[in-house]
């Protein structure tokens, strides 16, 4: 199958099989920040933005992506760098495996709600599992990025 998909503000023609999910197709096209953390839509490591909203790329059929705007970490370098520095300042950039999914979710949150409460942040990120960091420093980094107290 073929589809024209806008990836990081660039229209790309993707070639793939009907059974393929966007995660594997994106990786094949060199977007290696997108990765798999589980097999059951449970961890959000694979999060990308589809039309600005965070979605699991492992469950999004590539065939569906036609006509949509996809964003990965590779497409938001400047913001990713800011977020990275904030995570590093807390020491919570541990194994890094959940980080790209985390970055995309944070950008998704910013798109939706620029001034969330702690509760709203925790709810928004509930699906983002991290086994290394214990989550505490991540909340500090999120709040600093959004400029909320």
């Amino acid at each position, binding site marked *: 199958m073929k589809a024209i998909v806008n990836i990081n503000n660039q229209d790309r023609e993707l070639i793939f099989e009907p059974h393929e999910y966007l995660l594997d197709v994106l990786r094949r096209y060199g977007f290696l920040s997108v990765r798999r953390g589980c*097999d059951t839509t449970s961890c959000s490591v694979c999060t990308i933005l589809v039309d600005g909203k965070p979605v699991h790329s492992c469950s999004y059929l590539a065939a569906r992506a036609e006509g949509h705007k996809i964003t990965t970490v590779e497409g938001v370098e400047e913001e990713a760098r800011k977020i*990275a*520095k904030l995570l590093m300042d807390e020491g919570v950039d541990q194994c890094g495996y959940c980080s790209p999914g985390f970055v995309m979710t944070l950008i998704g949150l910013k798109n939706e709600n620029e001034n969330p409460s702690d509760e709203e942040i925790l709810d928004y990120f509930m*699906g983002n*599992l991290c*086994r*290394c960091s*214990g989550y505490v420093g991540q909340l500090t980094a999120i709040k600093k990025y959004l400029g909320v107290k």
Partner: protein
Amino acid sequence: MLWVCWTANCNKEILGGEMMKVVNQSIPKVDGLGLVMGKPTYTEDIIPRNALVVKVLRSPHAFARIKSIDASEALKLPGVECVFTYKDVPKVPFTRAGQAYPEPSMYDKFILDEYVRHIGDDVAIVAAVDEVSAEKALKLIKVEYEVFEPVLDFEKAEGHKSVIHSGDKIECKVDVGLEADKNIAAKVDIAMGDVDKVLDDCEVVIRRRYYTQATHQTMLESFRSAAYIDERGRLVIIDSTQIPFHVRRFLARAFQIPANKIRVIKPRIGGGFGAKQTANSEFYTALVTLKTGKPSRIIYSTEEVFEAGSPRHAMRFDVTIGADRNGRIRAIDLEGLSDTGAYGEHAYSVFLQAGMKSLNLYNKVEAARFKGKVVYTNHTPSGAFRGYGATQGIYAVESAVNELAHELNISPIDIRKMNMIRQGEAAIKFNFNGIKNTAPTEIVESCALDYCIDRGKELIGWDEKYPRKVIDKNRVRGIGMAIGRQGSGIANVDMGSATINLCDDGSFTLLVGATDLGTGSDTILSQICAEGLGVSFDKINIISSDTDITPFDGGAYASSTTYVTGNAVKKAAEKMRRLIEEEGARNLGTDVDKVEFDGKFIKVKGYDKAISLEELAIKLMYSQKQLVASDSYVCHKSPPPYMAGFAEVEVDLETGKVDVINFAAVLDVGTVINPNLARTQAEGGIVQGIGMALFEDVKIDSRGKMITNNLMNYKIPTRKDIGNIIVEFAESYEPTGPFGAKSIGEVVVNTCSPAIQDAIYNAAGIRVRDLPMTPEKILRELKSKTR
């Protein structure tokens, strides 16, 4: 009196009087930026082109013999390169346990065997050009099994009519008490004094039974490896592992090829927590690549990680504590049973730690004993998981001490202070198997437990909240506490080494075998190196975990990296400093005792004559010599980090649901090399501990099939499950540690379960003794209490 001062420009003087410029700083991780920005640096990102996809056919039976296996249909499928069965591989038994040689682990695993011993055990290995063909091929392999009754209850494993391992086919380099025909993988019997005699004499004796469950490490990057043959015919493995050097040794043994024909490279990895301290997928890719000459790769699904990985050993403990009425603990008798599952990789070592580490929290007892057995079952083989037995043993002992405190109507804090080990005291020296232990007595040179408890008490608000606060008629809050410890490396066993090269621009390359699994050890070791050399952090370029390039290191386990490898790095740095001073002196035309190196310049003392490190480096390289300094360290002690954990929970009396409101922890890890990274380790460990205490649970059905074999069914804590976590560190200094440091990696998970259990008791008056403490179990206890 030891003290600490923090100066405005961040030169820290730590206990012991050394001035710190780089150590004890929250320096950001060297790889942080690249990782968060998604740089392709993990195994899956650097797999060689055209690597064959390897998949494993796994047993659907918990215990069976392969009567026949026919791969002919699979081999006919286009795209399938090869299929291996037990008939095609060497019959050498080995262990996959990441431990120093000679391993106290049974050599009871084969690359492929005629017998399968757990659901998920390997049956056949397929390599094909792509995923789809490999999956199809798996389905075409025809296997006939002779199915045996599996051993699924570890309390009934000993003497079961199903004998899981044939004693004549397996061996153990170290005598760990293997009795294969009874399904006993190992036995432990350690004692000090005469426990039975002292217990007889005690005013108060309590006996309790506790269970801990199997839990999964659940690192988000599954097991995976890739293999290829390089231009010199050597096997190269790219491996998501904690133990590159041990993996090399295992492969050499399993495939009967020289270790120097194998190279193992660990790139960035997505966590391990001990799961990757057992070799796993490397055997499959090594096999395929050796046999075909082609590169190969394997990436485990979550189901494979859970069913064919190595969860925490489930254990049962019977704790007997004898004390007098005023709270002085006189004897502790611990009897345990541990489930090692189908293979005995970490059976003995984990079990030993359960007793050794927990009992040594209370060194002043007149007698102490730990004995028990580790049994084989047809469960997924258990393995290393943060805490490594100490977690389970400390849960049992600390819970019992809390129960004793209630029994005696003494505060759990006072009973700890009365009995716990303190700085300067001797650890219990255990006799093993009745043989007198003649090793020197170990003195604990750093222990700030006193402070940890006092400060933790403040942080949780103990005095205002103990024991409980009623919120409304359905909800009560309670607080509880526990102390914990781990070790730092394995004494006289763990060895780490470091090599430092001076580069032509005055910077340094630091080579260490030590494995960074995301913890930041690359950064920590660079800090120690920079501090030891007296240079700034940015001068250090660290390369780690490549068996061809970096010197030997056991790997990331036993909380050894900061303490053992850190000491090696410090020693190598000191050697390099001396070399710089020697060469600097020579280039300045004077003797070495007349110069000093301040990190930037080698100066002649008292004279206005100096050479910068950069100038010296260029001169040396073009054309004098390459400065190289290398050193190793074997730890002769394993100085324990300590922790006091305080939990505040809320119990819903009608549903049994428990929520953690606050968890405060104060840790003594000696000098904190990197406060941010250390704090994050603590927070991460506490969250894992909360999961283990309240809901993480490996569940197996009556056939032996793991029900909780993916992240939908096996839940780890989300950020909404943890309440408010507060972590602080005590001022402490371990004289034998690099700049006073001990370790932090494992201790962090050890206080949660006992502290939470007592908090629930204080809130609701009931105690659940088998983990996890789920709402259903709590409600059951509440209901039977009211009856």
